[in-house]
């Protein structure tokens, strides 16, 4: 009898399955309830058909590590009444959407909710893990403790400026996958990867058995293709949110990236 995989393993498994199929893992990101609260779950299901893992942004008033698109979507979602509680309620009601869900949230909404209660309700809602951009490893023990009890992942972020020793620490500590942030986004016109990016991704891979997913400004299939040679997956954020804002079909856009 096969043991049911833990929520955090479901994330890695989904990415590895994609790779095994010869595809780059795809992690679409949407800000919860944006631009329309009423179709949140429908949108989620639609992108889950095309993506391997789905990243749902919990809107925060002060998204200090994000660009203007995510800022705009966060403030609009808050104004529309989107909260962590609402998201968990929606997810629970939705049941399995077809892909593992990772919540991206700044720390304060999580603190306000309470870590233990959050872990319990997240697990119940089918959430598999968290990405918390303002929670460095050193200060994450209390939250990790709560997540561990439910087998939820705390995905660690690494960056091109992370020193090697710390890279090792973070790669060891990460769960689900390793989120490799780059600072300089790849612009639409330039589909070739500069050597410092490929070197960086190769170096991250050398420290971990987990899938490494790259958070770039991915907008085109060529980028995905090139990235796939150095990373297990890519995260598609702002570009997707902009498509949703424009009323385009998110699934078609995502499908085009791996065409």
């Amino acid at each position, binding site marked *: 009898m096969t043991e049911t995989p833990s929520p955090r393993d479901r994330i890695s498994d989904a990415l590895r399955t994609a790779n095994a199929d010869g595809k780059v893992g795809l992690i679409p990101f949407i800000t919860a309830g944006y631009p329309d609260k009423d179709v949140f779950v429908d949108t989620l299901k639609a992108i889950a058909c095309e993506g391997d893992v789905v990243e749902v942004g919990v809107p*925060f*008033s*002060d*998204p*200090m*590590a*994000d*660009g*203007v698109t995510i*800022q*705009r979507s966060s*403030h609009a979602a*808050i104004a529309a009444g989107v*909260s*962590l*509680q609402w998201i968990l309620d929606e997810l629970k009601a939705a049941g399995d959407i077809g892909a593992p869900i990772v919540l991206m949230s*700044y*720390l*304060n*909404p*999580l*603190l*306000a*909710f309470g870590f233990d209660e959050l872990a319990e309700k997240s697990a119940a809602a089918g959430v598999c893990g968290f990405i918390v*951009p*303002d*929670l*460095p490893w050193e*200060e994450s023990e209390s939250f990790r403790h709560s997540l561990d009890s439910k087998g939820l992942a705390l995905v*660690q*972020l*690494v*960056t091109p*400026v*992370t*020193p090697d020793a*710390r890279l090792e620490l*973070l790669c060891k500590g990460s769960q689900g996958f390793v989120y490799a*942030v780059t*600072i300089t986004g790849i612009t639409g016109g330039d589909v070739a990867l500069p050597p410092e990016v490929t070197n960086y991704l190769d170096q991250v891979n050398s420290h971990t058995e987990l899938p490494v997913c790259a958070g770039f400004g991915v907008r085109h299939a060529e980028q995905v293709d090139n990235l796939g040679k150095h990373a297990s997956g890519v995260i598609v954020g702002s570009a997707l949110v902009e498509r949703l804002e424009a009323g385009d079909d998110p699934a078609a856009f995502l499908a085009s990236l791996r065409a």
Partner: protein
Amino acid sequence: YAPETLVPALTRLAENVYRYLDDDDFMAHLDSQLRGWVGRPTPLTLAAGLGKRWGAEVYLKREDLAHTGAHKINNALGQALLAREMGAKQVIAETGAGQHGVATAAACARVGIPCTVYMGAVDIQRQAPNVDRMYQLGAKVVAVETGDRTLRAAIDEAFRNWVADPEGSYYLLGSAVGPHPYPYLVQRLQSVIGTEAREQMLNIAGELPDLAVACVGGGSNAIGLFHPMLADDSVEFLGVEAGGHGPGLGDNSATLAAGKPGVLHGSYSVLLYDGDGQIQDTHSISAGLDYPGVGPEHSLLKTIGRVSYVTATDESALSALQECCAVEGILSALESAHAFAGAREWAQQNPGKRILIGLSGRGDKDMPTLSQHIPSPLVATGDAA
């Protein structure tokens, strides 16, 4: 509690903070610039007029006379010198009331590093004179149109831009907030206020104050005044937060009075936020206090009971400002006016005491706001022969 992108930069900053703040040459150079350029020591003024009205002995620590007009320059100069030592190509900074922006622009010009200042669009409106001063001093000013378009949004934006170039840019944070080592660094650089004031009290008044009072937004001027006297058991401390229109959520910026522990701008401290963890929009007549957080050392000092924290409303700050103008001929910043309001109320409850007030800055920058609240009747030469 900083984004991972900043962790190496913060680690490097912390190493340099420990290195240079204990380096005799660096500190001697800083001291000579504080004396020769900033105008330190700033005076301690016996405010006999206020003392008579309040039934107290009142002294003012005159940071309004420091170069650029507020205590902010102590920190800006120290960090600009540090940035130069660290080889920074540019400095970025946020500003609320504009005082930290002006101080940073001036310090960077003096030290020779280009600088960009992020300022909320709302604050640009209400502190227009300071915006022009930053331009004249060569800073690039970026109007922040996102979020609440005040200090908090400006900090968001400054961090966001630091994240984009954490090695080449030095983020010159203006208050005792943000991730480690900023609260420590700012406290160290601002402690010159309290160190001087302590010595001046002993020389001029002959004794330490019974009470030291300062306004608290992020809390840099207060921690600078208080810290060097915390070991003096006879001294009580009062931090005065912005009570705004009143105690309702969103009506004030009284973080310690109304806040809960939380994380914002890379530091775990007391914050104003709602049940969902969303940071609260705040209100204060003074842009410099209009911030939903407070330095972590103030959280600690409140918790251990070493410092009392109260609030002063917009109205009481305005009336205290007018009183200081009328009686002492000193036009205080609206921020500092909160300290006067708090001191006045404390004096009524504690007659005959010796009170030291941190006058953190001058009110010239507040003219647009003051003119709205306090009408200015202009008389013209009439027809009477």
